[in-house]
């Protein structure tokens, strides 16, 4: 069997700040096969973006990858020299950011930006590069792409800019795309368009897609697998249906329970008490302990990630193994 497109193993990315070591990512593992979508979910500060940046080799000082592996078709990106990483980034592995202006240069026309991106990794003529750029815009549903190529980013709406950023990510038909909350700032009507493009993309080119979001409902409809992060760690992972219908980890169950549509209209929402802990002074043992209704003395020891059902892992010593109606 050949290696999966992307396999993140026990990734640790820490920031060595003056206030102490921020363990932003502290034991994250997941696998994405070609043509599949992995939903990486968690609340703000749980380490999703830093995980994405680590995969792209974009973590800057005071941060660095402190452990683990990022295997891209079996090759470890965590230890790859920057020169080689540059050959992959934007080419075989691309990122879509929450703010499309992270990708777009406000003072350059769209065609300039796209053509440069094509020429950075492909030995083709300028004309061919323009043709590819045009096709990529068409692919993400931008009307009259020839005209649009001549526009500047500020002439587009937020949703269109995000689609241009996606088109740029697509230029080299990458094997892996990491999309970091690309629809969070958009209206549901436009979000629907972008999710449709994402689905088409995986199906057509066999791209392995990591879709980062805090919205469980988006993951439910889009992803094949899911990894739930809490305080820098993946606390539960597995196939979407299993994790959402029969969550093992009390945090996953709490998250699902607090989605309004999972509650009777007008009745109090089930809520997780307390708030997410600061990464600088995490309690010893399970980080969810102070908010967990199932906590027991044993939870003061760090719980290991364990496979409780085929393909479904949880970092909890006292998971919900009985069938729960979430």
């Amino acid at each position, binding site marked *: 069997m050949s290696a999966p497109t992307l396999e993140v193993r026990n990734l640790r990315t820490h920031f060595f700040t003056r206030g102490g070591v921020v363990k932003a990512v502290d034991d994250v593992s997941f696998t994405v096969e070609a043509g599949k979508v992995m939903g990486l979910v968690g*609340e703000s500060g749980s380490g999703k973006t830093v995980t994405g940046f680590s995969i792209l080799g974009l973590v800057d000082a005071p941060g660095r990858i402190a452990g683990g592996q990022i295997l891209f078709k079996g090759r470890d990106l965590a230890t790859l020299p920057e020169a080689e990483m540059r050959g992959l980034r934007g080419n075989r592995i691309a990122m879509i950011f929450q703010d499309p202006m992270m990708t777009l240069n406000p003072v350059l026309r769209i065609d300039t930006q796209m053509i440069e991106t094509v020429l950075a990794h492909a030995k083709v003529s300028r004309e061919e590069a323009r043709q590819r750029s045009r096709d990529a815009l068409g692919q993400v549903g931008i009307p009259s792409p020839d005209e649009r190529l001549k526009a500047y980013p500020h002439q587009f709406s937020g949703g269109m800019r995000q689609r241009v950023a996606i088109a740029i990510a697509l230029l080299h038909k990458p094997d892996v795309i990491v999309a970091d909350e690309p629809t969070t700032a958009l209206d549901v009507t436009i979000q629907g*368009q972008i*999710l449709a493009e994402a*689905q088409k993309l995986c199906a057509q080119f066999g791209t392995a897609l990591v879709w980062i979001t805090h919205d469980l409902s988006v993951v439910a409809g889009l992803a094949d697998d899911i990894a739930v992060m809490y305080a820098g760690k993946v606390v539960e992972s597995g196939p979407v249906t299993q994790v959402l219908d029969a969550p093992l980890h009390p945090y996953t169950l709490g998250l699902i329970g607090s989605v309004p549509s999972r509650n009777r*209209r007008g*009745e109090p*929402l089930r809520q997780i008490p307390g708030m997410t802990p600061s990464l600088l002074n995490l309690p010893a043992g399970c980080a969810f302990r102070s908010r967990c209704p199932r906590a027991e003395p044993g939870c003061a020891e760090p719980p290991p990630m364990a496979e409780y059902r085929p393909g479904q892992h949880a970092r909890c010593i006292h998971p919900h193994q009985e069938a729960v109606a979430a």
Partner: protein
Amino acid sequence: MSETLTALPATETLADPIIELRGVSKRFSKTLDFAGRIAKRLGANLREEVVHAVDGLDLTIRKGEVVGLVGESGCGKSTLGRMVAGIMPASEGSILWRGRDMKSLNAAETREAKLRTQMIFQDPYASLNPRLKVQEIVGEAPQFHGMAKRGEIGSYVDEQLRRAGLDPALKARYPHQFSGGQRQRIGIARALAVQPEFLVCDEAVAALDVSIQAQILNLFMKLRRELDLTYLFISHDLGVVEHLSDRVVIMYLGRVVEEAPAEEVFRRPNHPYTKALLAEVPRIEARKRAFAGVKGEIPSPLDPPSGCHFHPRCPFAFDRCRVERPALRPVGPAHRSACHLNDAA
């Protein structure tokens, strides 16, 4: 308990309106910036543009109701909310506070109406003065308006904080020392401190994490029961709106396109825009569904389409839609919709 939260008063015994909007419009003229003025003087063909943020809108909110207001970005929700809260004047039309035109109120009455309506914003941090302690933020207005005696302001503030779910022991801290959810609670305590009847919540939970969002939504519902509050709840999150509204108002480009009791809107949407919107809401129950998206972009309010604003994106548009603005007409009990298709039947 759930009756008191969701039941709409029977049509016969409607509560008195707390606020009514009649033909209300709000226009903003986008004045040219410095570069634009120079360019114009040099002969460039630039003119001051007018945004019709709210366009001839009627809306009634009755005492004790929770009205959810939804629509795409830029459709005029915040503008409408600010006019309802009395912090922005209308360009046209009248706004009635308990049956009386705001323009006819004297200074004391206007002040009273403004105090009774409080607004809660999306970004609690931006709306809290960073240099004031929580006790000052919450205590300032009630002290000024004489709602608590000098010696009792401390215990008055404690009560507001406790009601908003904050430990009064933290009242000597500054806003930056709190989490996002806690800051939203400070904003709520500050609003409650002037004893409002009506809260306008503009994306009040949008910036919060799911688990914290549930805590704040529960707080809003509890306060409604305890203090008999009326809400205009502005949100782009249809799941949230469905959960806590009695009635839902859907806006598109400055106009109301549909309004109905919440269950009715979600079960039997009438307007093609509402239907399209509901179809795109991601649902946690759905698995590997095909997304589609409403075709087209949100049009610019600078140059809205003629006739029915939705016609360039509407799959059912016909000739009349391009020329005539559809009126908001009854299509069922307490259910109104603005679509020409309803006339054909």
